[in-house]
Each structure stands twice: as C-alpha cells, then as structure tokens.
C-alpha cells in the first residue's frame, strides 16, 4: 500500500527546477504531488507521478541524481480535526512522521496527503485497522 516517491537532487541555480519539470513533461509524465525542500545550496524535489518507472528511466538517462522512497498516500477527512486525528493515531503508536505534503487527488469527503514515515509498514497496519483509506501506486495511473 505504499506509493513510490521520486526525490531528485536539484542544485540551487536559476532555471534548474524548470529543467527537471521539462524533462518530465517531455516524457509525458504527469505530476500528482510535488514538494520542494530547500537549503542554501541545493533543493530536493519530491514528486508522485503517474508512471514512476518511466520517470525513473527518464531521469537516469538525463543524468539526474534521484532516489525512490516508499511513502503513504493517506485519505485525510475534509473536516476540522481530520489531520489531527490521523497524526494522533500515528503518535500513539510511536510512529515518527518525517514530512508531509499535499496531493492533487481528492474525493468529495477527503483530501489525500503524502506522508513520509519512519516505519511505513507499521503505519499501514495501524491506519487500515482504523479505517483510514490509503491509495496505492495504481490509483495514480
């Protein structure tokens, strides 16, 4: 039930981010979630795409440094306290959250968010047990 996140090293230089997105666009890859972590000198671009195999081969061909990390796409109820309940659930089970960001897949009653967790397998168990819906890679196609 994990989703493949592709993280790309982007040097902090004007135009570099645009270039990565162009490379992906030229390969016909569509982005469903995107986040950029930045420092003074470099950034890490994190994306969830419709075709991660195609994205990985394209990036490799173009000489980019990237990694593929398992993350969870979690359905967060679209109501006050929705995120709070999920985070409490994870916290109660001693599962550390490293970062999270938004995703463009929505349902009428919930928004999907990308969670990077220290113990994804345990998290899946806890979340599904508590009827929290998760997306799988296929859902992004």
């Amino acid at each position: 039930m994990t989703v493949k996140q592709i993280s790309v090293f982007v040097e902090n230089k004007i135009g570099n981010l645009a270039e990565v997105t162009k490379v992906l666009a030229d390969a016909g890859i569509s982005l469903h979630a995107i986040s950029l972590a930045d420092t003074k000198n470099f950034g890490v671009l994190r994306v969830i795409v419709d075709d991660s195999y195609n994205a990985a081969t394209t990036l490799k061909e173009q000489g980019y440094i990237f990694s593929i990390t398992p993350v969870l796409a979690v359905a967060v109820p679209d109501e006050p306290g929705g995120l709070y309940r999920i985070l409490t659930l994870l916290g109660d089970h001693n599962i550390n959250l490293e970062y999270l960001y938004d995703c463009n897949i929505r349902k009428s009653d919930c928004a999907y968010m990308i969670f990077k967790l220290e113990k994804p397998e345990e998290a899946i168990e806890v979340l599904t047990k508590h009827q929290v819906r998760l997306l799988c890679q296929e859902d992004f196609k």
Partner: protein
Amino acid sequence: MGRYYQPEIECASQEQIRAWQDERLIKQVRHVYDNVKMYRERMDELGVTPDDIKGREDLHKLPFITKDDLREQYPYGLLAKPLSECVRIQSTSGTTGRRVVAFYTQHDIDLWDECCARAIVAAGGSNEDVVHVSYGYGLFTGGPGLNGGSHKVGSLTLPMSSGNTERQIQFMTDLGSTILCCTPSYAAYLAESIIERGLRDKIKLKAGIFGAEAWTEEMRHDIEEKLGIKAYDIYGLTEISGPGVSFECEAQTGMHINEDHFIAEVINPVTGEVLPDGEKGELVFTSITKEAFPLLRYRTRDICILSHEKCPCGRTHVKMTKPLGRSDDMLIVKGVNVFPSQIETVLLNKGYPANYQIIVTRANNSDHLEVQVEMTPEMFSDSVSVITEKEKELVSALKAMLGIYADVKLVAPKAIARSEGKAVRVIDKRNLYQNN
C-alpha cells in the same frame, strides 16, 4: 636605536657577506653530511663529498631538496642535532595529512629572532615601541617569530595572537600599540573595524609588518591610508625558520634576504638551472647557520626575482620581489598553505568523487574558500537533513585537514566541467599576482 638592528651585518660589504657565506656553507655541508643520512646518501649518489664544497661557487653541485623530501623524512629524518639539544618545534600544513615539522636549538631560535628584530627595526621599531602581534601563536611561525624579534629589539610586546577583533582594538587603543604585525588581510579587516567604530584617531599605530600571504600594492595603499601607517612586507617559511627570512626596508621595493643566514638562488623550475639576477624563477634557500634543521638548496616553489642593486636604505643584502606566483599548485588562504591534493584526500576518504573544484574569493579583504563537490547517488537521500549532515561532516573533515574553514557546495553531477587535459581544480578569483 638607529635605523638598523645590526648595521655591521646588514650594511656589510658584498665581499664580507660572500666570505661569511663561503665559510658557513662549508661548515654546514660537513654538518649535514655527518649527521643526516638523507643528505649523505644523496651526495654519495652524485659523487659529491663535503670536501668538494669550497664556497658558494660550489653550491650548484649539491642536490635540491623539496617539500616531498621533508614529508618523507617526517618527523626526525632531517634532524641534524640530538633531540636533547632541541628546544622548539614549529610546523606547517602539508599535504595528505603529513605535516612538516621543523626543529630549533636555542641558537636557531636566537638567529630567527634576530632576523625578525632586523625587520622590526627596518619598520622603524625600537625599545620605545609597543609591538602588537596578531599573527597566530602556536605551531604557526608567525606569532612566535615576531614575538621573539620584538623581545630582541626591546619593544613592549603584546602577544595578541589572531582573532577576537574587539579585544585587539581595545588593547590597541588602551595600550597605544605602535607597530602591528599580522597578515595583510587581517590588517585590512582591522582597519575597517577601527574606522567603523570611529576610533581612527584613538590609535597610535605608525607601522605594520604584514606577511604570510600574497598581497597587492593596492592593498598596501589601502591599509596605509586607512590606518595612517607605513606597511612593510615580510617573507619567510617554516622550513627555513619562519618570518624574517627577508623583510622590507623603507624603500618598499623588495625584501632584503638575511644573507648571513640564508643563501638565496633563483632557478629555472623545470631544468634546475641557476638564473642570474633580474630573471624570474623559483626561489631556493640554503640555511647556513641553522643547527637542528638545516636545509640545503630547499625549493620554495615561490617564483620571484633577485636584485643586488644598491638600496637607498643602506642595506647591502640581496633583495627579492614579492612572490610573483607559485611553481606548484599551493594556495595561501587566510595565511594558511592549502594544497588541492589535501582536499582531494579528504573527499576520497569520505567517499566523494575526485571531481571537485576549489573556488577562492576575497571579499572585504577576507579570503573565502569554497569546495564544490558533485552529488552522487550513494550520498543522496530524500531527506534534506541527512544530506546536510553529510555536508557538515565534510566541512569538519576539511577543517581538520586544512586548519581553516571551507564552505562545501554540493552541485549536480557533471556540473563541474571536465577538461580534455589537466582538470581545472582551482579557480582563484583574488588576482593576487596581477600587479607584478
């Protein structure tokens, strides 16, 4: 005190200087041949015996020695006196983790101090002066050298060491420092700090003795104007003794080499051929009075020109230009010797690719060293904190190797240009040698 520390030596006739050099060289060659295995083996290989050296004219018969030799002989290989007779060690940064250590007997310290005393007097110093030494103290020779020289002159010596600018300025104003000794870049920084604080008319400085790194005439004028002083250059290297191997006089047209202690030659760095006065080449020194760590024909890798032209100051010792460049790839950053190979060693040890670039800049008269390294798949992580941690590790490893802070910049793979022939490892944007 007069214009010279030792007028009978500093203004001796050329013949007298030559006589001292002949006599001392003969003695020194015998001393190293008898006491240092490396010299004995090298001379035997060339079929040269100490008896073949009858004076300066025979100097060319002796083999050169290089920094690599010093590293290979670390730590005691070149020691020519029993350790029981040595009283001091100083050290210089070296490549690949191996430093160069130099040993001194009390006699060696005395002659080194004497050379620095000559430099201080040449800059107008006397026992009426307060000599403010902001060179680093410790293994680096800058602080101990000028400190010793100042004692010889009888000046009141302020052993400030480097750093802590606030305290430097406070002592300077409260205690009325008259002569400042430090690197030129630190002098420029101090000058700006003094002006910023509006303390320009509270300082009593009249002269500065600045060395251990390359500086331009523009920088000299800038410091002189800002501090209202006369700025004198000083040259030296730990291998030979330390600062004071040569020093500038009021003519400010080159540095007088203390020829009664050091014989200078300029050679073609490729062929080793000795070049005449006025020709540009690599400076080579033979220390003829040192006991513990005497070096014969040591190749400094500094490129300069020698001149025996009469100096208006009255000193007769040969003058050398400021170094006009290097015959190797050594950089001097913040007064510290940095070799690209040291940086390469750290990168390889830490598992980084050997494709790197060193960028040296100078802003506000302060040097900045940046090491650009290409990111690799092994080092990469989707977590910024993991990468930042690796960057920090690299920064501390570089600091441990170089002794100074270097900024690390991770760049995209292939971002550093590959060249067909020799890779461009160093980009020095300071243009230190442009005016020479």
